[in-house]
């Protein structure tokens, strides 16, 4: 494999600036890697011709001295982001022929800054899943394997294709979306960095909606610095999204490498859950020691409503999904299955177009919003959500700058291993990440070690609203101590 695909975004940026290589060479190296890695099913659409055109334009801008902050950087885009003229499916049968006539704000800002599109990456259907196995385009195979085993593992989800692509060196970075952990959990499973920004930091416009009060776009990359570089381009106020927040976008990269001396880091005691593997406990302890060695002060804190976050999530998210996905009716776009009358057409279209998990969540959402049940379920869950947010606010008010927790309750599991009989088994994957979405906070997953079977494990840092910078500073401390993790190439 070409050395160019192994670079970080920061190093590629320097190489392009110094004209050590061209953007076209960088794009070609990635297109070749992408083609050889089809066994992973990380991409659902490769766009090599477009990559070449965009890279040529980047080279021209670099030659003229007009390079943008991401000029010539080849990226993968989760198939939940609408890309103008490039098929966007949310990995659902109901959208499998959809070609947007517009560009999502976040991807548009990446192209504005010079980035190059490599292709669209696989995800759980409508981002509903924690293993990328609910995709209509098939499961993604993680580039990681257990030591001495050929068992295919999941990359996590829902942004599993993006995580696998970045971990396997098929893109320098990728976009994801995170509704309950869909960036941080796959980042942890594949040994890369993934950030969910504060709710409102990135525009949701043009991103296929799942649960609008929880969805947030964010970056994947192989280093903390690279995610900081990407976030600067992705973030910003957008008048087309009324929940996007009009606060300035800082130079996130400047926070990377900043001292964390004297920063107060909360260790939430409720995250010490029953049956947590010893390896996860050890990793968490290790993380505390690294931050302490860097001068941070560790404080045990309490987030008493933590255990209610997941059940509340499984009311709020399906409720919002049932409303958002009402638009797929076979009339304006996507699949249409003819029926006896218009109701028959709706019902047939949605039965055939949605997969099992999506149908299940729409039905749960429909039930909790239906007459007579709204107060007992949805209203109760939104009140619990207020309590979850207040737990965090109380800690921040006591001077806590960020929290350190494990990112996932285990390392990656095998394809087909979980959730077959009981949907709750799969849902429990998000137990450490979902609180962050419920409270709208920023969270980052940083690779921190390997388990006994040689699989990556991640730590999560949770920050104050709009204080992604602190997460980048702290994340860099972990990266410096833990090092970086690369899967051994077994494909092609």
């Amino acid at each position, binding site marked *: 494999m070409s050395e160019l695909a192994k670079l970080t975004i920061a190093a590629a940026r320097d190489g392009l600036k110094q004209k050590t290589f061209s953007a076209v060479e960088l794009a070609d190296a990635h297109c070749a890697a992408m083609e050889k890695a089809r066994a992973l099913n990380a991409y659902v659409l490769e766009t090599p011709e477009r990559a070449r055109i965009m890279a040529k334009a980047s080279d021209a801008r670099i030659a003229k001295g007009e390079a943008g902050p991401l000029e010539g950087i080849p990226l993968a885009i989760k198939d939940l982001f609408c890309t103008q003229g490039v098929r966007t499916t949310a990995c659902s049968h109901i959208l499998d*022929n*959809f*070609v947007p*006539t517009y560009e999502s704000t976040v991807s548009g800002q990446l192209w504005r800054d010079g980035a190059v599109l490599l292709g669209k990456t696989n995800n759980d259907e409508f981002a509903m899943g924690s293993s990328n196995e609910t995709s209509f385009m098939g499961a993604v195979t993680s580039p990681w394997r257990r030591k001495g085993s050929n068992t295919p593992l999941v990359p996590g989800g829902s942004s599993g294709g993006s995580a696998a692509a970045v971990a396997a060196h098929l893109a320098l970075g990728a976009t994801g979306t995170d509704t309950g952990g869909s960036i941080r959990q796959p980042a942890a499973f594949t040994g890369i960095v993934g950030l969910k920004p*504060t*709710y*409102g930091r990135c525009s949701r416009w043009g991103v296929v909606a799942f649960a609008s*009060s929880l969805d947030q776009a964010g970056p994947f990359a192989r280093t903390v610095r690279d995610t900081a570089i990407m976030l600067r381009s992705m973030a910003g106020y957008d*008048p087309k999204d*009324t*929940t996007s927040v*009009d606060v300035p976008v800082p130079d996130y990269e400047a926070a990377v490498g900043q001292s964390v001396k004297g920063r107060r880091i909360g260790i939430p005691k409720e995250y010490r859950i029953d049956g947590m593997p010893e390896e996860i406990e050890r990793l968490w302890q290790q993380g505390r020691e690294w931050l302490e060695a860097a001068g941070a002060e560790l404080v045990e804190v309490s987030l008493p*409503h933590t*255990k*209610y976050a997941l*059940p*509340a999530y499984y*009311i709020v998210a399906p409720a919002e999904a049932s409303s958002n996905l*009402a638009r797929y*009716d*076979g*009339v*304006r*776009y*996507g*699949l*249409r299955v003819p*029926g006896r*009358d*218009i*109701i*028959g*057409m709706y*019902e*047939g279209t*949605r*039965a055939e177009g*949605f997969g099992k998990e999506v*149908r*299940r969540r*729409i*039905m*749960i959402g429909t039930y909790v919003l*239906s007459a007579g*049940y709204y107060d*007992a*379920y949805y*209203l*109760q*869950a*939104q*009140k*619990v*959500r*207020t*309590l979850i*947010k207040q737990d965090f606010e109380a800690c921040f008010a006591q001077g806590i700058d960020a929290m350190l927790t494990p990112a996932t309750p285990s390392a990656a599991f095998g394809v087909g291993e979980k959730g077959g009989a009981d*949907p*709750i088994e799969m*849902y429990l994957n998000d137990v450490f990440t979902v609180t962050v979405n419920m409270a709208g906070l920023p969270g980052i997953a940083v690779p921190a070690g390997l388990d006994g079977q040689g699989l990556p494990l991640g730590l999560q840092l949770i920050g104050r609203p709009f204080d992604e910078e602190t997460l980048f500073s702290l994340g860099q401390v972990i990266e410096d101590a833990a090092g970086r993790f690369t899967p051994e190439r077994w494909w092609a």
Partner: protein
Amino acid sequence: MSVDATTVRRIAHLARIAVADDEVEHLRGEINAILAFVEQLSEVDVSHVEPMTSVMPMEMKKRADVVTDGGDAEAVLRNAPVTERNYFLVPKVVE
């Protein structure tokens, strides 16, 4: 709370998703498993708690009430399964 087969059919109809007879029992089991899981929320005392309505507290921005886009029927209809003369076509809905 748990749902019976009639409720499963009613929910499916409200959600406009066709459900075959042999799917009902399985769906009922899955929905009840999820309802049992979320049941624990009822033990939380929320008597003096406001429901969350806005994730980030802020005043919603309003734009000027002017036309900013439109007049492009071709783009609007491009992904539609069936169209005719700039209209979306659906099965007959009035007798």
